[in-house]
């Protein structure tokens, strides 16, 4: 597992770079270069593993398959895109630029562990490695009271939910005598002890917290709103997607055979997430906060992949992770250019900067799930998985209804840009490089929508 080692070492290198390199710009360039290296290492891992080959590392603590490696590569690619798009904004957050990028590298290390774990202890360590840097990043704007509040809130709630996760792991260990997720497959429906059931429920609650599914979503709006926008973009995309892959790995590999025992609980969580996320997003005035609720709503759709427990679900998760990440990173990159984060701040953007407005429209269309964008294919695949499984038709219909609701708040931004009079003020000048990168992001969104098989056939 070269990528895990590489992510750690590169993170440490970046930390030390902060001591010796004082120029913020050169630190950011170094970070982008190191992320390129990390992407290279991931691709190296990918090409040296044959299809259908499964490797295990560290006494079977990690089990690496092609899917996990491909997911890691794509997430690293998204991180690279993210770093290129927002590196200027990250430099503006505070004076510790090297540390911010180092923490992002450490988060990636957690991502790699979460997509390949074969032992629930590695799952625990992975979740900690994923979460702790986020608490710091959320509070990185130290002089801002809201940022500190976000950090503290996230830390307390996160620590609590990790406690629940550990409790679940303990109960499962008590019931089965193992930490290995493959051996959990021997759990049988007709002889499930109350202890094992309680353990599964605890794990589900802990994961629902990490992916911000209702009713464990309360922290999300405050944290996403309070944290500095560049880091919100990272938390809402790559981190959330990898928490979902970990969720799915455990519930499909280990508890897939006994899915009838936990399916109803997760279905209710899904319905609540879709309802709360979409309905509350409608009432928001700030686009940043709307995106926070939209990330809850999107989590509702991703939960379908966990619910469905079949091969299409795995494909759906992959494409949802990438399509959602790319579109949201793009949307946040545009948002960071705006001076005013409210809907009114977008008034008349189409007149002032037609190109930026067009890019924003594509990102929003993708988030709303309009055909020919990545978001449509993502929603299509996860709902297809649920239909193939066939037990949750009421939920699929409810999700379609909620997707229609979601169009309202995404289109409100488009309305503001194109049909409202106003003078949308930009925070900074949008440089030619920014335009080029945004154009690439838009292209990715459209390619994902037109040819999803590019990332599904691996």
């Amino acid at each position: 597992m070269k990528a895990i080692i590489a992510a750690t070492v590169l993170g440490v290198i970046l930390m030390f770079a902060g001591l010796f390199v004082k120029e913020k710009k050169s630190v950011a360039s170094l970070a982008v270069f190191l992320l390129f290296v990390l992407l290279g290492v991931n691709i190296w891992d990918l090409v040296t593993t044959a299809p259908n080959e499964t490797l295990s590392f560290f006494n079977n603590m990690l089990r690496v398959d092609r899917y996990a490696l491909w997911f890691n590569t794509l997430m690293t690619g998204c991180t690279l895109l993210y770093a290129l798009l927002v590196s200027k904004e990250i430099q503006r957050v505070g004076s510790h630029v090297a540390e911010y990028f180092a923490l992002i590298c450490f988060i990636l290390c957690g991502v790699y562990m979460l997509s390949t774990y074969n032992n629930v202890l590695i799952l625990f360590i992975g979740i900690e490695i994923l979460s702790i840097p986020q608490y710091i990043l959320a509070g990185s704007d130290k002089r801002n009271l809201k940022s500190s509040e976000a950090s503290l809130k996230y830390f307390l709630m996160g620590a609590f939910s990790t406690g629940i996760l550990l409790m679940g792991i303990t109960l499962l260990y008590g019931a089965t005598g193992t930490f290995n997720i493959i051996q959990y497959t021997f759990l049988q429906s007709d002889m499930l002890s109350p202890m094992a059931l309680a353990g599964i429920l605890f794990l589900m609650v802990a994961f629902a917290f990490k992916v911000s599914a209702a009713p464990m979503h309360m922290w999300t709006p405050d944290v996403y709103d309070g944290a500095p926008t560049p880091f919100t973009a990272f938390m809402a995309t790559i981190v959330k997607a990898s928490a979902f892959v970990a969720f799915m790995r455990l519930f499909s590999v280990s508890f897939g055979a006994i899915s009838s025992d936990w399916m109803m609980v997760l279905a209710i969580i899904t319905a609540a997430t879709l309802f709360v996320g979409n309905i509350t997003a409608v009432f928001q005035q700030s686009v940043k906060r709307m995106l926070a609720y939209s990330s809850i709503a999107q989590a509702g759709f991703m939960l379908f992949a966990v619910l469905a427990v079949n091969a299409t679900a795995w494909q759906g998760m992959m494409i949802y992770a990438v399509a959602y990440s790319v579109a949201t990173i793009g949307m946040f990159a545009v948002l960071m250019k705006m001076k005013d984060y409210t809907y009114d701040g977008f008034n008349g953007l189409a007149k002032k900067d037609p190109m930026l407005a067009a890019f924003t429209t594509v990102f929003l269309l993708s988030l709303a799930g309009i055909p020919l964008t990545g978001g449509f294919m993502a929603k299509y695949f996860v709902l297809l998985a649920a239909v193939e499984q066939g037990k949750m038709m009421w939920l699929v219909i409810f999700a379609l209804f909620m997707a229609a609701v979601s169009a309202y708040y995404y289109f409100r931004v488009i309305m503001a840009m194109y049909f409202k009079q106003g003078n949308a003020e930009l925070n900074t000048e949008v440089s030619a490089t920014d335009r080029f990168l945004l154009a690439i992001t838009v292209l990715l969104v459209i390619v994902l929508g037109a040819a999803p098989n590019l990332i599904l056939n691996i």
Partner: protein
Amino acid sequence: MNFLLLAANQQTPFSYLPVAIQLLVGIGFVVLTIGASQFLGPKRSTADKLINFESGIPSVGNARQPMAIKYFLVAILFVLFDVEVIFFYPYAVNFKELGQEGFWAVIMFVAFFLSGFIYIVKKGALDWED
């Protein structure tokens, strides 16, 4: 008491009965003693009794004052190195069995730890005057 032993020997949720009883006794004791002292104890509240006790002298100022973060930093660093030392104990006991591989693993652990230490020193976390 026989039924408790019986309960403990069965591999069912019923075998947690002794734990549940223990829990009830524990909570009951706390509630009982605190509640009893609340109800039975004499109550003569005067203004003097409500102020913080500071060895008999009148209290000065507020107890909630900003503290230098250095104290916290030193405490955290202490915990870190303490944990590092704790990891050495099991290694020292199994030094021979773990052989070369274990040695390099520990070297790697210490190297990561040291790089963290160098980092904080360079960042000036241990500079007391500022």
